[in-house]
């Protein structure tokens, strides 16, 4: 039986279509994926992400430990900063992609819901003496407020000045007398905030955001639009673009791999791969004819298989069929025409550089 987030009743009351995801009943959509997607791009949306995992790592050797199990340099994190990072195995394959918050008591890790137990076990089994790894997920709810109108809504609800908060930083604030954590982060490509708070406060915050946000056009947004929003911004999703068989170098995440920071699990394998050159690369592509690419479809070049699709959808912002996938490196250049095999038909697609939707800041 799947778990319920503290907002389950709110979702049901709003008429959400619920789906089971990573062991939780989550809203897939409220009114429709396309409309919700547009609402985040043009106004503001609120997401229940309470299924995500939060893990606290503390102790005098917490930093050394985390630097050994991740690819990015944890020592470069300043207090109040957030870092994108990856847990890798000995082969350099991605165990999970995570956020690390430098908190006063140590390091606060936000991990993918589907990987939470796996990550917790991995961290616990590799931890050094004098470090503690604690799963805070059951006592943590998470709401995201995303979109061009996110700032005024969140400032009014929390009654804090947040305009000066920098992207990928956070602050611990008080909400109804209790400590909450607010970061300027997100998974949509829009300005926005993520709010970690005790579960019992989540329904109240949800209601206040919807009420105060009403003149700003706020809508609740389900996991369906969350997926199309991140895809348009070419952000990887664990289980699609990232798996234990894929390395950060293949996924185009090399800038989050620091070979100079000292040893870490997977370093040797990744160094070897870097020296030899990656055999496959993640690319973004746009279909040139009708059809929609989907996860698992074959990618061909002149009829020969050269890779596979990891994510695909109709882009609600551009009305084009877009996708991500891995192809043999020799075919990965932008402008290259590939073919996506859709139900035995070969549909031409062009590899493009960068995001599918360019946002003006």
């Amino acid at each position, binding site marked *: 039986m799947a778990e319920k987030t503290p907002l389950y009743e709110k979702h049901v009351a709003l008429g959400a*279509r619920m789906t089971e995801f990573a062991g939780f009943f989550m809203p*897939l*959509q409220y009114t*429709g*994926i*396309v*409309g919700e997607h547009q609402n985040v791009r043009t106004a503001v949306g609120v997401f229940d992400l309470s299924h995500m995992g939060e893990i606290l790592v503390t102790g005098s050797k917490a930093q050394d430990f985390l630097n050994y199990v991740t690819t990015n340099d944890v020592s470069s994190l300043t207090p109040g900063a957030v870092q994108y990072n990856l847990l890798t195995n000995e082969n350099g394959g991605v165990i999970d992609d995570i956020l690390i918050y430098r908190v006063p008591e140590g390091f606060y890790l936000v991990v993918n819901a589907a990987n939470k137990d796996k990550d917790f076990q991995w961290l616990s089994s590799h931890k050094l003496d004098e470090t503690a790894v604690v799963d805070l997920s059951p006592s943590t709810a998470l709401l995201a407020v995303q979109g061009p109108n996110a700032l005024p809504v969140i400032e009014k609800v929390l009654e804090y000045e947040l305009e000066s908060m920098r992207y990928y930083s956070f602050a611990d604030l008080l909400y109804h007398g209790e400590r909450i954590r607010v970061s300027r982060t997100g998974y949509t490509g829009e300005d926005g905030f993520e709010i970690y708070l005790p579960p019992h406060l989540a329904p109240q915050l949800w209601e206040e955001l919807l009420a105060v946000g009403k003149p700003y056009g706020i809508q609740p947004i389900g996991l*369906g639009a969350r*997926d*199309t929003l991140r895809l348009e911004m070419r952000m990887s999703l664990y289980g699609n673009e990232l798996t234990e068989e894929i390395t950060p170098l293949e996924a185009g995440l090399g800038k989050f791999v620091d070979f100079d920071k000292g040893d870490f699990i997977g370093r040797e394998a990744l160094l070897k791969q870097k020296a030899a050159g990656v055999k496959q690369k993640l690319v973004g592509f746009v279909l040139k004819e*009708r*059809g*929609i690419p*989907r996860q698992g479809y074959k990618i061909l070049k002149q009829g020969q298989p050269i890779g596979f699709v990891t994510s695909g*959808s*109709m882009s*609600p912002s551009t009305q084009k*069929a877009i996708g991500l996938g891995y192809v043999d490196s020799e075919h990965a250049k932008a402008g290259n025409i590939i073919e996506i095999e859709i*139900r035995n038909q070969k549909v031409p697609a062009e590899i493009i550089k960068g995001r599918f939707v360019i946002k003006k800041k």
Partner: protein
Amino acid sequence: MEVRKGLLYSKEHEWVQEVSDSLVRIGITAYAQDQLGDIVYIELPEVNAQVTEGEPFTVVESVKAASDVYSPVTGTIAAVNEKLEDSPELINESPYDDGWIVEVKSSEFDFSNLMTAEEYESYLKEV
């Protein structure tokens, strides 16, 4: 969800409208389009293609997934709704009218496996 009177329905949530003795119009029901969500693409079959009752004859794609549409009758495609190529959302907006998908001709239709509107309504309560 509207179940339109006077149409016949399949268990896979397609509707059949008898245009004449030898021609039917086919679409998906209001319930089906609601379950699929925003429809963003349909792969229309070719005119003159053969369709068989219970077998897929086209694919509709929502933002999330591709789904087969099963033919409720056996016959030959006489017409396809070409408006859906550029406006697949018509299936969401008007499943029984502007969102029709194909017309199928046959000298002798077999409707014995299809439901009346009343039977389909009760069927929906079970699914």
